[in-house]
């Protein structure tokens, strides 16, 4: 048996007081696709950063192809044949594919020779692995799936035998995911070694040979994918049994709560981000918006929530026409029963340096219950936060603890508690479980369904297709700022959704000009 491609032994890393990797060992066999999963903060990224030379381990050793290797910088890693494809692509947008790939290998003061060498290599690789990428295309004009192939090619041109992919599917449509997986299997078949870091269990099951699971800085197990199941892996990740399916009864939709007609949003440059979008949300139903991120979902939420002024169209809440972003700013809308859980809790939903109680006050600081006149009553603020923390099982239940110190799931629970506990008529909720650990996902899903069953209207935006399908009573698919279709979750499948998400098929009845 050949030496394993990667053997990390006893890797230990502390950041100040945080023990990010505690004597972690991992072995990856040559020519396999190896999954690395774990919840946020489990230490996956630290481990991969050590392997790629971003961090230096406090203790432990790494052997590449059986040879002990000292990897101190990314350059050492590349030299050892390791390539990394980051979740956020590291490409120069104004450069062509060739120019991007030759970065760091320009071959002297004049670039012509380097460019032709890179071009030849690109062609050979594209041919060998069936990746069709135009070498002269400008990167800013490529689709996301193509960008990812450029990143993979970049690593391969530099001679990578071992590829690390960090959350590679986060920005892809189901079809693109499919394509990527075919490519990864093919690369592995040619003897390359692939490590894929993800939190999506389904993908792990689909593409990997073996899976390593991390929990709280420790490696809790490596299993053959074929001998495992999503439920087993989830249990390893969380340390207890979790329910992966969402249980909900049929919806009982009542009157229309939110009525959106021809809503159009332009960004600061005047580009149309939302193009005549119309739909309704009724009381007692969850309407989900599916789509690859960046197709207008954020703009839709922000326009309805009064954060962004639309360029045209009408939004009504319970029959009352709203002046979103004008007179109806977020404060006025909150008073009318519209609550909003923003897509990005770090950017908008919380103030990370604040203590939890103050983050739980965001958007509510003018309520009379929190003080008199210009003053804030700190005891009332703390007491309110304690109540919310109890209702949503936030741990640790300490309202004085700084927001940034809570885990992703608990931060999200603070935001949800703040918005749901105010008895909304309409809840806008974006990415309810992004960066949230599996245990908390279960809880958050139950809460959203409970809200629906209490007769509230819910508009849900998520880029996790499974989540949208599991939670929603109706699903709208968005692509390029338009709604390309509406489906009932029980009447659709992944392929159908994928085509709508890619904008390939569309059953938009009429697009008002």
């Amino acid at each position, binding site marked *: 048996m050949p030496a394993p491609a990667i053997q990390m032994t006893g890797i230990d890393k502390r*950041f100040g007081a*945080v023990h990010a990797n505690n004597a972690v060992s991992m072995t990856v066999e040559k020519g396999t696709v190896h999954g690395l999963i774990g919840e946020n903060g489990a230490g996956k990224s630290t481990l991969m950063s050590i392997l790629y030379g971003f961090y230096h381990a406090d203790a432990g050793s790494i052997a590449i192809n059986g040879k002990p290797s000292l990897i101190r910088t990314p350059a050492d890693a590349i030299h050892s044949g390791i390539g990394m494809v980051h979740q956020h692509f590291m490409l120069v947008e104004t450069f062509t594919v060739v120019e991007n790939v030759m970065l760091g290998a320009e071959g002297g003061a004049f670039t012509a020779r380097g460019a032709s060498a890179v071009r030849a290599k690109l062609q050979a690789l594209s041919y060998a692995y069936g990746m069709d990428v135009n070498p002269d295309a400008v990167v800013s004009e490529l689709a996301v799936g193509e960008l990812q192939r450029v990143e993979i090619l970049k690593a391969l041109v530099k001679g990578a035998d071992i590829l690390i992919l960090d959350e590679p599917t986060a920005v892809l449509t189901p079809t693109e995911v499919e394509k990527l997986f075919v490519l990864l299997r093919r690369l592995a078949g040619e003897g390359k070694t692939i490590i894929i870091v993800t939190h999506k269990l389904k993908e792990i099951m689909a593409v990997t040979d073996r899976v390593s699971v991390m929990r709280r800085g420790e490696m809790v197990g490596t299993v053959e994918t074929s001998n495992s199941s999503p439920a087993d892996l989830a249990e390893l990740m969380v340390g207890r049994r979790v329910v992966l399916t969402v249980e909900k009864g049929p919806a009982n939709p009542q009157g229309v709560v939110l009525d959106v007609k021809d809503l159009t949003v332009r960004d600061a440059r005047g580009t149309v981000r939302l193009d005549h979008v119309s739909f309704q949300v009724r009381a007692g139903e969850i309407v989900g918006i599916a789509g690859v991120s960046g197709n207008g979902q954020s703009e839709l939420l922000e326009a309805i929530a*009064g954060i962004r002024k639309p360029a045209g169209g009408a939004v009504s809440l319970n029959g009352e026409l709203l002046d979103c972003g004008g007179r109806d700013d977020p404060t006025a809308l909150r008073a009318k029963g519209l609550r909003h859980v923003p897509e990005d809790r770090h950017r908008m*939903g919380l*103030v990370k340096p604040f203590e939890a109680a103050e983050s739980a006050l965001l*958007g509510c600081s003018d309520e009379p219950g929190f003080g008199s006149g210009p*003053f*804030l009553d700190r005891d009332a603020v703390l007491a309110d936060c304690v109540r919310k923390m109890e209702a949503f099982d936030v741990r640790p239940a300490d309202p004085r603890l*700084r927001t940034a110190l809570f885990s992703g799931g608990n931060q999200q629970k603070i935001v949800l508690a703040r918005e749901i506990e105010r008895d909304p008529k309409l809840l806008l909720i974006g990415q309810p479980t992004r960066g949230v650990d599996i245990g908390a996902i279960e809880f958050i899903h139950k809460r959203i369904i409970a809200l629906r069953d209490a007769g509230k209207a819910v508009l849900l935006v998520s880029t996790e297709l499974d989540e949208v399908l599991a939670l929603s009573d109706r699903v709208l698919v968005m692509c390029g700022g338009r709604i390309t279709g509406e489906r009932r979750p029980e009447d659709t499948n992944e392929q159908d959704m994928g085509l709508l998400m890619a904008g390939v098929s569309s059953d938009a009845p009429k697009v008002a000009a």
Partner: protein
Amino acid sequence: MSARTAPVWLTAGVVPLVNVAVAFLAAGLVVALIGENPIEALGIMLRGALGSQYGLGYTLYYTTSFIFTGLAVAVAFHAGHFNIGGEGQALMGGLGAALVALSLPFLPWPLLLPLCVLGAAAAGAAWVFIPAYLQAYRGSHIVITTIMFNFLAATLLVYLLVGPMKMAGSMAPETARFVPGATLPLMNQMAAWFGLTITRTPLNLSFIFAILAAIFVWVLIWRTRLGYAIRTVGANPDAAVYAGISPARITVIALLISGGLAGLMATNEILGVQGRLINEFTAGAGFVGIAVALMGRGHPFGIVLAALLFGVLYQGGAELAFDKPKITREMIIVIQGFVILFAGALEMMFADRIAALYARLTGKVVAA
């Protein structure tokens, strides 16, 4: 990273103390290099600043100005802005106080004096309004505009003091004396009201104002809805927009308060000591305020302590320069520079290491 998980007494207490100690060590080295005994020099400084009623009076007099300018920087800081125009706003504060004092001399003092104090605050606030507006609604960087407004304020004051506001027949660039009802009583006068005798120093009633201003800022920032809005805008403007707080509006309000506090610095020098408007009376207090606010970590209590430290440096430094001819006035500025460098600009240099040491000593592992 790790500094976040350390207890408050460590980050707000031990870390600044270490910084100051290092600053004094570096300054001590310089003193030793020019052939003086650093221990002796430190002794002279401390005795000169704190060892007598006279020294303490001067120390607290300097402290008063630094509290005002430090608070001014801190309030803007909480809104996420760097108001380095304290110098100009304080100069204009002096102008505001002088305009009230000179144009309404017939008013009885219970009316005139509060108006003079308000005039100082209002003029300081007015001077920051244009930079604040440009920052909030036009995106012009406040650092650039407030620096420029410092120059404008200085030139405007020179123009007024050699021209329209100059006392008739005087050669000096200064206004006529204010009526007694427009000046603040000195501390020794006030002590005399209670039958106490203390040495006459420039320390005056505005010291009490400074302490009240510190309490006001604390209540404002941590106990009011406006303060919450200011801190939200400063820490996360996107979250503020999400919450329905207008960052532009809060920026203007916070900077007006900041300018007002800087303007109040003039109550110490102009209403308290000079009793007339003179040129360049701020003597750099606006800039010291930046170091004071940084060192005090934007907290009024820390600012009062940091202002006191700089008061000690100013008064003790003057004594030292007087006692040791080799240590010139410029040397004192070098020492102050070290304190600003280590306690202000490099305040985080030792923070992580101290936190790591603490973690090792206590064996506490705090999750991030």
